């Protein structure tokens, strides 16, 4: 039995004539301990897919099975790292994490909860900033708080929705390593949604492209057979890496072209010629 299973998922927004099918016929299985990345263009329905899996929305058709049972609403077993951090600006770093921990472990005493908060804030090396508010932190630091908040609840599966999308390349690289480190420690199942193919290859065991929406569906999967821990610089010279990377990019480019050529909208331009100013004044 697969750990997470998506069977024939369809998701439609709106009703009647104005209905748009965002996702169609999505099938996906993730095994326990696996790190899967889904890559796709912006606007291809990635966030909708994530929200289906974490239980924020329900599919129009089909079923999402988590450990064999259908997903009904959100759960502490699936931790989510949102695209835009979604920290509460009126709480400090510590309070943001504490709120999550308190919900996840309602039976623990306050000191135990504070210990967990301290542990995870330390893990993302933000202990000096624990009493600061999100607006005093840089983008990378905010995302680290979001990571700490998701992981402090000790979820069995981590769902990341373009977690590093808004960060600069250097911070991105550091955070990728940090996330991999944390994942490597207790091998939780992880699902990463990204628009960066390199990021996917560097981090995941398997990459699945999402064909752009409307009617987005999953493409063929690409296995990444690179030894962990992976080294970014060495990876660039690895023949296997190059091959996979080219294959994925080619695939994505092809769907991009296909989408362009498939466009049925024709723009009829009106027949206009410039006004004759010169003759007017003769």
């Amino acid at each position: 039995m697969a750990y997470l299973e998506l069977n024939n998922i369809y998701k439609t927004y709106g009703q009647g004539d104005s209905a748009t099918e965002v996702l169609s016929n999505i099938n996906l299985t993730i095994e326990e301990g696996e790190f899967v990345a889904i890559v796709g263009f912006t606007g291809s329905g990635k966030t909708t897919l994530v929200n289906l899996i974490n239980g924020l929305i329900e599919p129009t058709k089909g079923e999402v099975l988590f450990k064999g049972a259908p997903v009904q609403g959100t759960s502490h077993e699936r931790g989510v790292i949102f695209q835009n951090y979604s920290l509460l600006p009126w709480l400090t770093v510590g309070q943001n994490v504490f709120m999550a921990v308190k919900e996840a472990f309602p039976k623990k005493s306050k000191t135990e909860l504070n210990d967990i908060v301290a542990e995870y804030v330390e893990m993302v090396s933000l202990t000096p900033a624990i009493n600061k508010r999100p607006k005093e932190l840089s983008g990378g630091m905010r995302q680290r708080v979001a990571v700490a908040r998701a992981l402090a609840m000790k979820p069995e599966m981590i769902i990341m929705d373009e977690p590093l999308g808004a960060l600069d390349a250097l911070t991105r690289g550091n955070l990728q390593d940090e996330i991999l480190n944390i994942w490597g420690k207790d091998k939780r199942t992880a699902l990463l949604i990204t628009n960066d193919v390199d990021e996917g290859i560097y981090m995941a065991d398997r990459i699945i492209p999402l064909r752009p929406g409307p009617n987005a569906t999953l493409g063929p999967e690409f296995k990444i057979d690179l030894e962990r821990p992976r080294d970014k610089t060495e990876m660039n010279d690895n023949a296997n890496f190059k091959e996979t990377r080219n294959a994925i990019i080619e695939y994505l480019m092809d769907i991009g072209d296909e989408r362009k050529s498939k466009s049925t909208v024709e723009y009829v331009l009106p027949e206009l010629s410039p006004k004759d100013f010169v003759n007017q004044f003769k």
Partner: protein
Amino acid sequence: MKQSLTLGKVTKFMGLGFLSTLKDLFTGKLDKEDFKTFLRKTVVPIASILLFIGLWHMGAKSLYNIEANHKIEKALTDQGQEAADALRACIASGESGCQPNTLPSPSQVWDSYKSLLRDHNIIAADKAAFIEKTAALNETRIAQGLDPITYTGRPSFVDQIFRSLKTVFAGFLLALFIAVPVGIFIGLSPTLKSAFNWFIQIFKPVSPVVWYLLVFMIVKTLLIGSNEDSSFTISFISVGLCSMWATLVNTAMGVSSVDKDYINVAKVLKLGNFQKIFKVVLPSSLPLIFTGLKITLSVAWMVLIAIELLAQSPGLGLFVWEEFQNGANDSNAKIIVAMFVIGIIGFLLDRLMLTIQNWVSFDKTDAI
């Protein structure tokens, strides 16, 4: 250095930034760069105030002349040349009995202001003397279980200001305690929203006068048999009911339009309803709630005058009305003094709310 920095911060925070510029000028710390800002922020407002007073002075003078000429002409046609000459001489002599009744000039208003202050000092002294005189007697009366004797003399202008402020704050608190909780419930539940919407839409535009009459009808019946002075109760309830709508609508809107990201966080963390409201919904709608409260306070202050006038509650509104009815020589000037006092207090109340708002709510632009 450090002190002026904190002063600058504090005044800027309160929306009174020009004060720190003024201080910099007197301590000689203003450099050339700031001089333009100083000109714009301090000199220009002062110049416009002077211009306003000048225009007012000239306008009052010409109105005075029109009124005086009209009076003299009327005397001429009604009573003949002799009476007209007598009146002209009387007006020129400045005797109070025959002065034309029109818009007072700035200097008259200033004189009235000083006379009101003098009046206040006299009454305050009188009151202090009274309290001193009755102190011993009151002690024995309290020991005997009797009510102490209180000062029942005429309230001074300053007393009336404080009475008005008391009424406004009582009304404001009433509005706060009704509108914020109701607004939260309406904002949280679409069902309640549609249940209350007609109510809000219909009662929001009702005039203060009508609110007063409504409250009067109810309070009069409730207080039947008691000989307590109900004017304060009636006026503060009316003020509260008139002014609470802005807070109600803003709170409901703030609560129902919380950023979707925060709601998603609350869902993913599986926060309970109580936690969700107090940790996510309320903090995120605080800026809008405070905008509503700010409007509520200024509306409360604005309708207060009309309501005090109707309720015969001895505050600024009643002062204005009584001076108008009084028709004494300096009544018009006193009304203008009251007008400025009302305006300045309204401005200060607004600043007070702005300060509290800046203090409690997070900056929306820095969110996420």
